């Protein structure tokens, strides 16, 4: 069976789910079911531990692996504090680091993210840093003890697809950690594309949350991720940038005798 070994666990679904932006948190159970996701990320800033009725964690199936995220953190220090609060509140030891100092494009700060990754990995967290796809920083994330690397496909919420395709491809080729494409994936076909390239998983939120029928869209993403993964495992033929010459250009080397 094609299991993804990650953060000390083995999981079969390669679609990770985000829980922001939904018209109602009460649709989340249906979305999780339809997506077959096993990993669900939640912004800790949205969780109200003091109000059991409002606590959105109630909508997340206990069998799912919870991956709290540090949305709202502007520095490594803030991300570290949020991660510690999450763990102390019983949210497990997985954490997705989001450090964003740019509210216009919501692009991550790789430097602060790296600092937070170093600190939290040393504290025993399974750290999933969300980052701009940069090979040098990804290597440093790996060396710092990250459980995976989560490069963005395009800016959060933009639904623009895999605009960073070539940079993500380099990470997939060079970094021996699971590469999870996070942010920007707007359509199931784009999720399939990331999986065909060899991404270990994709994380989808906006495209499902704001769809006309979120659960149906979650199902579509689930199929797309499986299809893309199967395509990758089957060994895709190389796409050829030029037509094959019908008479080989080097045929004369064989014809010399």
């Amino acid at each position, binding site marked *: 069976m094609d299991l993804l070994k990650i953060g000390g666990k083995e999981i079969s679904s390669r679609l990770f789910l985000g829980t*922001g*932006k*939904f*018209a*109602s*948190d009460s649709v989340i159970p249906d979305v999780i079911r339809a997506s077959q996701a096993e990993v669900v990320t939640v*912004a*800790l*800033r*949205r*969780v*109200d531990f003091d*109000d059991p*009725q*409002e606590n959105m964690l109630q909508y997340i199936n206990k069998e799912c692996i919870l991956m709290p995220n540090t949305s*709202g*953190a*502007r520095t490594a220090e*803030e991300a570290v*504090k*949020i991660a510690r*609060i999450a763990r102390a509140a019983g949210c497990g030891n997985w954490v997705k680091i989001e450090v964003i*100092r*740019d*509210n*216009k*494009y*919501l692009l991550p700060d790789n430097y602060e993210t790296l600092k937070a990754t170093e600190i939290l990995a040393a504290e025993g967290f399974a750290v999933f840093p969300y980052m701009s796809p940069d090979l040098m920083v990804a290597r440093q994330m790996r060396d710092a003890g990250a459980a995976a690397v989560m490069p963005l496909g395009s800016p959060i*919420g*933009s*639904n623009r697809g895999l605009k960073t395709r070539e940079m993500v491809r380099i990470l997939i080729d060079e970094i021996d950690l699971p590469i999870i494409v996070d942010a920007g994936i707007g359509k199931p076909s784009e999720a399939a594309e990331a999986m065909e390239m060899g991404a270990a998983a994709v994380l989808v939120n*906006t495209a499902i*949350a*704001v769809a006309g029928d979120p659960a149906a869209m979650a199902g579509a993403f689930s199929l797309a991720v499986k299809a893309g993964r199967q395509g990758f495992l089957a060994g895709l033929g190389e796409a050829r940038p030029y037509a094959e010459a019908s008479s080989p250009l080097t045929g004369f080397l064989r014809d010399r005798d």
Partner: protein
Amino acid sequence: MEFYDLYRKQLGHDLDSFLAGITPGEVSDIINKNRITETGFLALLSPAGQKMLEPMARKAHGLTVKNFGKVIQLYTPMYLSNHCTNECAYCGFNVRNTLGRRTLTIGEVEEEGRIITKTGLRHILVLTGESPRNAPVEYIGKCVRKLRQYFSSVSIEIYPLHTDEYKTLIEAGVDGLTLYQEVYDPEIYDIVHIRGPKKDYTFRLNAPERACRAGMRTVNLGALLGLNDWQKEVFALGLHARYLQDKYPETEISVSFPRIRPAQGGFQPKVTVSDEELVQMILAVRIFLPRVGITVSTRERADFRDNLIRLGVTKMSAGSCTEVGGRLGGEGRDSQFEISDSRSVPEMRSTIQKLGYQAVCKDWLTI
């Protein structure tokens, strides 16, 4: 350079003839662009834009859902003090008005805070008049520390401060600032602010920037609509938001469009802003600044507020009261202005839900 230096250059331009010259076709071209220039933004505010509200609304709706989801953040105001040394023509707290002046004790602040938390709200906006003697920074800091025990987010809407004072309040637990310039036109500003420290136009105008510099997490700007031609005011407001967004990307910038409401003193607005015009400015700002937050308060009618949800609004007040200690058994006589939407928090939440959106009570945490 501060915002005033940039804005001063705009003041010399003849906006009226530019606005009159824009055609619906030009507005349509701007709507279809991915990036909107400042001139494009101004064109969206033109009379021609009024004829293009539906296509503007479609674009604004799409941008809002993409950037913010189907979510409305709820907050509520708490008035700490109505002591004020200013004579502002339009305001119920005007120093010349006779009203019961009061500043809450820390105990009363806690009591009112406790009442509010029962509604589930976790974001609060505390307000004062401008009276550093009755409500000094130190007092506001104490209130904030107390409220921080009950709320995830505490914002302030108080008199403008110096950078180090903003830092003091941030350390006390403030994470948001709301500060309306009231009117960006300096001449009108001088006329309606008759007396008091608020007469200092540039000190107020540059205050949001000082808050950004101090590390404030969110800053909310606004112009009080009714004091000047709204197109000019909203243009200035948009430029101000864009300026801060570019210069302080760490701070979340949002804007409000408060229309003048009846208040003690009986001030008559110079211009009346219609519902159609308010819609037009919300759409124009959303298209110009897709990531900016847009707040609508209970100044607006319930049915109208409900219709604005799909057009670009991201934050709304609920269960509001504009009187000091209003939730502790006040009589509603000494309010800053009359509210139009008096629905309770549960009513607001269920309405928002019926409209296909989620009302979010908590979206920050104490770290």
